[in-house]
């Protein structure tokens, strides 16, 4: 990547384009600090990371699909479904409105794995629809997005719950995957930040060091050439959508743990946040391009905007306008790296 673009453009400009999103992040942090210096604190960092963790995992899932040249609209609703599923099985015995009144305390990992597995299953179905039936990813996942919301609402509306928000979650759940941390005081690191980093590490290894990863970039880069090269395109797509689904499942579980509850409206529009973070982080919606550090920076940019602009008292309506502009400007800049000069 270093030799990229070295010709004719001047060095400084080329350097700027290459790392444009990092500059945006630094600029945002400095700008907010200039307005209110108290923003510059371990506390802010702590809160931003906490909020960004589940977002990062969803965005990494979305990146899997985007790199193959697809798009996954089902992310948000799958997060919601996984949150409701895991929460429904992890309430304390004393809670008055239990989802499953007679259910004994399950080992923590059972509901967690069930939720992740359901995510994986829905992802697998997405994969089958896209790869075997050649339905365009936008349509396939639009369909599953709607269907999963229906499924989640049905489940959420079952007796005796009947669409009551699920509360009274077990403390071992909410602390392990939610509010818990190692260390103490300012030097603490929340568990969910660690989980997000581990997931990011794992995804980085998949993207860069495995046959699956290289095949993904190949499919996104030139699907015809991938077919000719004898890559099993259908199988790779199946794995990609399944992996993305599993990540959404995990993110849903963490979202339930972090907030201490769940409703069927959880995860609404998260897929768009995830895609926005990806494209701001340099993932190409045309496929074939994208890195894990890029996605993480993309997520952090939105984390800083959400937290920082609220911190300095910018109205949430203005925040939306700023977010929208950043998506457009960041991509308009980033795309210059890849425009072929004619």
């Amino acid at each position, binding site marked *: 990547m270093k030799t990229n673009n070295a010709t004719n453009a001047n060095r400084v400009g080329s350097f700027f384009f290459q790392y444009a999103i990092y500059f945006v992040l630094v600029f945002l942090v400095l700008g907010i600090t200039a307005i209110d210096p108290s923003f510059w604190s371990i506390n802010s960092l702590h809160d931003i990371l906490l909020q960004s963790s589940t977002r990062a995992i969803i965005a990494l899932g979305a990146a899997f699909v985007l790199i193959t040249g697809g798009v996954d609209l089902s992310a948000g609703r799958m997060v919601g479904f996984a949150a409701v599923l895991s929460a429904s099985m992890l309430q304390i015995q004393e809670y008055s409105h239990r989802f499953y009144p007679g259910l004994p305390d399950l080992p923590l990992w059972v509901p967690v794995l069930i939720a992740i597995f359901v995510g994986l299953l829905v992802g697998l179905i997405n994969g089958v629809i896209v790869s075997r039936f050649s339905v365009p990813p936008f349509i396939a996942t639009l369909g599953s997005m709607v269907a999963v919301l229906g499924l989640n609402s049905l489940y959420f509306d079952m007796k005796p719950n009947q669409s009551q928000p699920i509360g009274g979650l077990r403390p071992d759940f909410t602390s392990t995957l939610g509010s818990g941390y190692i260390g103490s005081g300012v030097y603490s690191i929340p568990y969910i930040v660690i989980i997000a980093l581990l997931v990011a590490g794992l995804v980085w290894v998949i993207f860069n*060091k495995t046959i699956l990863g290289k095949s993904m970039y190949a499919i996104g*880069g*030139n699907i015809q*050439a991938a077919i000719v090269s*004898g890559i099993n395109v259908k199988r790779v797509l199946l794995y990609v959508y399944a992996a993305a689904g599993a990540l959404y499942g995990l993110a849903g579980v963490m979202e339930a743990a972090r907030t201490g509850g769940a409703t069927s409206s959880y995860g609404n529009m998260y897929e768009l946040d995830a895609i926005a973070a990806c494209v701001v982080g340099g993932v190409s919606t045309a496929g074939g391009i994208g890195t894990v550090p890029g996605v993480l920076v993309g997520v952090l940019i939105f984390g800083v905007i959400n937290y920082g602009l609220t911190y300095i008292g910018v109205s949430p309506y203005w925040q939306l306008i700023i977010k929208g502009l950043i998506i457009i400007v960041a991509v308009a800049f980033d795309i210059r790296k*890849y425009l072929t000069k004619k």
Partner: protein
Amino acid sequence: MPENKFILEMNNVSKDFPGVKALDDVTLQVRPGTVHSLMGENGAGKSTLMKCLFGIYSPDAGEILLNGQKIEINSSRDALDQGISMIHQELHPVPRRNVMENLWLGRFPVKSVGPIKLIDDKRMYQDSIALFEDLGMDLDPHVLVGSLSVSKIQSIEIAKAVSYQAKVIVMDEPTSSLTGTEVDQLFKIIQSLKSRGVSIIYISHKIEEILAISDEVTIMRDGKRIGSWLASELTTDSIISKMVGRDLTQRFPEHHNIPGETVLRVEGLTSPFSKAFKDVSFDLRQGEILGIGGLVGAQRTELIEALFGLRTVSSGKIFIKGKQVKIKSPMDAKKHKIALLTEERRATGIFPVLPIVENTVMANMIRYASPYFLLKQLPMKQDVQQKIARLHIKTPSSETQIKNLSGGNQQKVLIARWLLTEPEILMLDEPTRGIDVGAKFEIYSIIADLVQQGKSIIMISSEMPELIGMSDRIMVMCEGRLSGILEGKNRTEEDIMHLATKFMV
């Protein structure tokens, strides 16, 4: 004042590309109201000349005169405004819209309703009808274009050209997808165009057709104009010898192949599509280069893509080393040690934004798989480095994006990709297309080397010197059928050309 002798003149046009003189002092002079055919082998420079006419390329030297006036053309829009129009071989209509909307696209007649301008459907319909009647075409302006045959769509294009007041219409292989009666229809339309004083530049490989319809013929070869003749002075044989009559100036590496056992045997391979290949049978022996010759549209690419599992086959058998095999996907082909270098390097070969390393290992990553799913990075990098050195791939590093390399070096990376799969049979589709002369020789050397190592090669080429210079045997196809296999030393381009046009009407 008398009319000009020529309606269109392209005088002394030259065009250089890096390493190739695509056009060398070419002159084309077209008389009003005549059909002037332009002939030459693939790569003779016909398309380049037409691209200069339409401003897609700007010629390095020469001038273009229309009616004796020097004109400047920078785009096909300019050409259209000057009255020069082109009917392409591949038509691109808007299939979901009707005939008249396609015809008047971009210049719909409008009527004013107060301050608003609306499309005047009624006038558009009447204008269309008038135009079709005038040209003797039987077309309903309201029919969806997607439901029409190629020949009708072509008629719309011709009508469109006439509606632009075209004085010169270029037709590029207009009959390549027409049936016999449709060709007759087209010829009638051409006659009616001539009687209106419109000139046609007619590009085709079909010699009989050229002799039937042309007034004059210009023949090109290797970017040069060989000459222009009245069609009545020419015969099929004289055209062929004028098209190919040249010395073998290109050089090929010395190679003395000693073909061994039959490694691949194809029996009666037939495509389910009627216009594609049918009943093709041939053998490929170990350590030989089997060339496949033929004109554009002879279904050569389709044939070898079928052998590679990229296309479906309705009947026929494939044997590898005497054992019948089924090849349904490139994955199957790889298992049988077959490799395919495709014709369209950009469309189906390279992964433009990925580094050379990925581009090289992509067909054979399993070779570097370790337990725990991780790829062994070191052997991968070493193999790629070794291939870069062996094939003399010129690149700043193995991490460079392949799109930044020259065509020849991209091609070498793709050859490296397939060599890593350790194939026994390599199928090369136009391996030197779009590559400069120096890199061509290197690729010939690589091919010769592979045969020395006992690999078997199938090479499609439209460049006859390349076919003759490299192949042990040359199999020629025409209209999807095998028209003959040429063996021995004394093969000539005339032989190939005769076989390549054998089944043409």
